[in-house]
């Protein structure tokens, strides 16, 4: 394959390593605890499951348009990008290093189904550690920007990590939620959530919906170039982590609840937001969608 062509490379299709290669300035990435160190999961063999040399996450330092950044990229195809012990600890180590090293930003290329059940307690705790470390990095003035557009989406504790970031960029294919559609269907039945109705899934938790309601700050076409451009914009415009920000977020989320709490479907919300033709939203291309977003007050804010 030819070298990384970030204009053509699909974020959704690319592996974690391909995303990083194309996202960062060429040749700038240095990996921490790379695959040759073979720090693999000590637990998966008990379940007769194959391991990955990097335990499904690539962490390290690189340069983004001349700025030093720390990056972590989850591989959504290995164990659904889920947090195991090593996987989670690599992210935590990166974030803690950021507090001291103060790079221009930390970029989290999230692509995860949540906690890896075979290592559930370790994964769950690591997510809590990561959230604490994100807050510490943000408080130290390091923007933490989440980039979401992989096939595993961003579920479970990954959704909470996303909600802890300074800024989020999402593409149409990206999904952000806590419980996944299958989990809800299994627990509450297909009447509550028909997980096979993929249009419904994406209306409920997909990138466009998250962007429209202000759950994400940038909407990207599905190319690495678009995510790079969004990341640069978002780094330059990250909200502080302080009381004012969280009070504003409280007000923002409460207002959302008051205004849309009785809506049954995303299209009801979009209509109330002032989108002219809500049913047309899923089919919109990126420019048309950006145009729609530009008219909505709720989508753009510093309350995160």
């Amino acid at each position, binding site marked *: 394959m030819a070298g990384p062509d970030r204009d053509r490379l699909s974020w959704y299709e690319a592996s974690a390593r391909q995303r990083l290669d194309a996202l960062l300035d060429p040749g700038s990435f240095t990996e921490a605890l790379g*695959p*040759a160190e*073979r720090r693999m999961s000590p637990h998966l063999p008990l379940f*007769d499951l194959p*391991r*990955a*040399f990097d335990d499904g996450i690539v962490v390290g330092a690189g340069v983004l348009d001349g700025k030093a950044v720390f990056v972590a990229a989850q*591989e959504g*195809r*290995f164990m659904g990008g889920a947090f195991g012990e090593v996987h989670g600890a690599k992210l935590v180590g990166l974030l803690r290093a950021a507090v001291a090293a103060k790079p221009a930003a930390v970029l989290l290329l999230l692509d995860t189904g949540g906690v890896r059940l075979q290592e559930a307690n370790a994964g769950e705790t690591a997510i809590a550690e990561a959230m604490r470390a994100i807050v510490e990095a943000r408080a130290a003035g390091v923007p933490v920007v989440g980039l979401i557009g992989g096939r595993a989406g961003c579920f479970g504790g990954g959704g909470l990590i996303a909600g802890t970031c300074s800024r989020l960029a999402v593409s149409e294919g990206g999904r952000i939620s806590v419980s996944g559609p299958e989990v809800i269907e299994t627990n509450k039945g297909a009447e509550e959530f028909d997980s096979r109705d993929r249009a419904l899934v994406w209306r409920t938790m997909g990138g466009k919906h998250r962007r429209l309601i202000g759950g994400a700050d940038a909407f990207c076409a599905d190319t690495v170039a678009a995510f790079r451009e969004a990341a640069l914009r978002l780094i330059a415009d990250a909200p502080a982590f302080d009381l004012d920000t969280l009070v504003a977020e409280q007000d923002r989320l409460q207002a959302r609840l008051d205004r849309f709490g009785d809506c049954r479907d995303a299209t009801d919300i979009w209509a109330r937001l002032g989108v002219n033709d809500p049913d047309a939203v899923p089919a919109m291309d990126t420019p048309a969608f950006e145009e729609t977003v530009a008219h909505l007050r709720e989508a753009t804010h510093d309350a995160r």
Partner: protein
Amino acid sequence: MESLTFRHTTKTPLAGSKPQAITGVVASGNLEILLERVLPPDTCEVAIETPVSGYGQVWEAVVADFVARAQPGGLRISINDGGARPDTVSLRLLQGARLMEA
């Protein structure tokens, strides 16, 4: 999990000087391959971890064909397999060798 190791002597070392490369992803029907230039130039070793047991002969044949074709002298090749089909394994091995030659 089954572990397999194959050691081959090659006629030539693999071209290029890249010390290390990784390709592929451990996923159902897929695999990752880590290549490291750490062995004597006429030696190649391929170590495989696979969750699918009983395919030793197939692996042996795939690896032998790859070695004959690519002459990957000097490489230690480590494979984490996710149940990939032999053709996928061949393809990834060739991809890996090409990365090392770059």
